[in-house]
């Protein structure tokens, strides 16, 4: 049974501290793990050639966690891992800050690499988060990135 932790929080995060804490709390006794794959997504100061000063993330509480969990379960049934940690920021985020952390642990690298990538791609295309940007010129706009239609 994999250890899965999904957190959505408005507090700025250090991905590396979260990883360390997760390993200490959940994986300290598991000496069979030989691989950990990590993706961290950070906020950029530029989008569509405009300078972005802040980004505000909104989500659908409850559905977001449930949708990510569904995604994680589907991926790890194909690429079994020992653990998965996902932490996503909401609220106001500044350029350079970490927006999202996705990490997986497994005995060998293949499973953790694949699971990490597929879980993250699934999160991007199906988890109900929305980004709103405040530009340096004062304009405010929703990010309308084309995403795959997530209907089942």
């Amino acid at each position, binding site marked *: 049974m994999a250890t899965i932790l999904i957190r959505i929080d408005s507090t700025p995060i250090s991905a590396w501290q979260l990883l360390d804490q997760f390993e200490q709390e959940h994986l300290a006794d598991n000496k069979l793990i030989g691989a950990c794959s990590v993706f961290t*997504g950070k906020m950029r100061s530029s989008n569509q050639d405009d300078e972005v000063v802040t980004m505000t*993330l*909104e*989500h*659908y509480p*409850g*559905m*977001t966690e*449930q*949708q990510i969990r569904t995604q994680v379960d589907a991926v790890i049934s194909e690429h079994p891992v020992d653990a998965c940690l996902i932490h*996503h920021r909401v609220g106001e985020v500044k350029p350079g800050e970490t*927006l*999202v952390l996705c990490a997986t642990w497994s005995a060998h690298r293949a499973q953790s690499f694949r699971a990490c990538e597929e879980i*993250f791609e699934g*999160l*991007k*295309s*199906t*988890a*109900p*988060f*929305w*980004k*709103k940007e405040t530009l340096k010129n004062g304009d405010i706009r*929703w*990010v*309308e*990135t*084309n*995403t795959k*239609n*997530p*209907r*089942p």
Partner: protein
Amino acid sequence: MTITIKYFASLREAQGVAERTFNSSEVTTVADIIAQHEMAFPENTLISVNQVYAYPETTLSSGDEVAFFPPVTGG
């Protein structure tokens, strides 16, 4: 039938409210809500019923929570 409707992101701003209650005896599916809804939704609107992705043809029961929102942009 009583349905709770939620709107998120740009759709919430367009509606001016985050949530409303919909009462109608003439509702069987999500498509019926869309048809009776005062404001038309953009073509790329996504739908969930009880926090699971759904279709216009998804059947509803009284007490269900239906949400309408634009394409997601997390990560």
